[in-house]
């Protein structure tokens, strides 16, 4: 094989940057949406049996069907019944709803790790349900929920490559476009892989910092 040509990456810099930007925007926005949905659904399903049954189908449908099908359906299918959104919105909504389904289960599981006595004790101190949730219960779930949340984020970031079917030129699509022109599979995919890894690794560093803040004495782990 001929020598490696990493110079093509410098030439393609602006194009890579454009793709990186789209990937960052789509995945960060949809992750925020997923956290909001996931927390709300997770708490609701942990608190009441009725909500658990009512919201069950949402979680099961989004976990039980391929994300690509969900994106196709939201963007190309929904306009048939009058719901039309632009490609970025559709991509973010699709990724957000999909991620939300997984995250709601993380939140629900993490809530189960907190003893019921905590809520009673908070009530005895005169805290409302909402105050108790924000100040007492949720901080205790952070330690449990954080590691799987980082996994969720890395899945979501990588899944964001699928929004290229909605004509969004994100990082994976850019790598294909460069490869089409240059035929340099080794250099192009190595570089793009490194970019994805860099993004996920920086989120991991942030999560490690947060994890230290929510350390609880007497619990497993150091």
């Amino acid at each position, binding site marked *: 094989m001929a020598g490696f040509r990493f110079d*093509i990456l410098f*030439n*393609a810099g*602006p*194009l890579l940057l*454009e793709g990186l930007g789209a990937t960052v925007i789509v995945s960060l926005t949809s992750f925020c949406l997923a956290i909001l949905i996931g927390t709300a659904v997770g708490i609701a399903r942990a608190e009441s049996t009725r909500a658990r049954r009512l919201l069950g189908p949402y979680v099961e449908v989004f976990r039980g069907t*391929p994300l*690509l*099908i969900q994106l*196709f359906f939201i*963007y*190309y*299918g929904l*306009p*048939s019944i009058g719901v*039309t959104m632009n*490609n970025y919105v559709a991509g973010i909504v699709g990724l957000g709803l999909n991620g939300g389904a997984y995250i709601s289960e993380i939140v629900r599981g993490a809530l189960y790790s907190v003893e019921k006595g905590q809520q009673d004790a908070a009530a005895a101190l005169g805290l409302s349900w909402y105050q108790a949730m924000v100040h007492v219960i949720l901080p205790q779930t952070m330690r449990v929920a954080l590691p799987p949340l980082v996994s969720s984020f890395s899945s979501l970031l990588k899944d964001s490559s699928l929004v*290229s*079917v*909605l*004509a969004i*030129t994100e990082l994976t*699509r850019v790598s*294909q*476009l*460069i*490869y*089409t*022109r*240059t*035929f340099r*599979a080794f250099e192009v995919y190595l570089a793009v892989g490194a970019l994805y890894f860099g993004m996920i690794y920086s989120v991991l560093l942030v999560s490690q910092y947060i994890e230290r803040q929510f350390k609880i004495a007497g619990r497993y782990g150091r």
Partner: protein
Amino acid sequence: MKLRNWMILMAAGAITMVSATETLADTSFQKVQERGELVVGLCAQYPPFESKNEKSGQLEGFDIDMGQALAAKMGVKAKFVDSEWQGLLGGLKKGDYDILITCMSKSETREENVNFSDVYYQLPDVIVVRKDETAINTQADLKGKTVGVQLGSASEQLADQMKDTFKEIKRYNYNPEAFTDLKFKRIDAVLVGYAYAVNQIKTEPSYKVVGAPLSEAEVVMILPKGADQLTTRINAALGEIKKDGTYQKIHDRWLKVE
């Protein structure tokens, strides 16, 4: 790969369902005029017809120049949107694009569901092998060999017609992947459009074209079903650029061989 096939089928199904309900008056050309813009959908992975210049980041190729020339004849600007091949027909149906100019041949979609423009290029399919290949010189030599094609392409349909003679047909999302597999000897030949083959050999001289062209695909522009006004205008503009020499100029710039 299987999954992608399903997806294409589903998209086709959805398109058929939607088209059955559509009986609105045709304002396709007025819309383009009011917007002052002809929105062209394409998949920029098929040089020299369309690709994104990796240095400038600009789309370029035969289809780009032609789209611009056609739009100019109609007094509007052309705007190009790159999308995955699988999303093109869905996006057209949904109204994201006015037209697809992406080297699509008649056999790659169904005329019941879309409007075709006049044929703007005849694209022969050819056999591409490694430069050092000596055993494959004609179509007959492909007997018992493994050939690669791009999914959903006219070349794939051609390969399917001859599939009994092959050992195996390998289907790739995009041609570059097929060429890489050819280079690393995981397949014996690639069936692909002639212009694309020539362009790739320029970039990567480790391949050659052998044998006579297999068949000619009729390349057309694709418009939404019922966009008859716009289709008429596009065909008229195509006739004009052919007459005034613009078409020939664009052709020579991108598709002239030798």
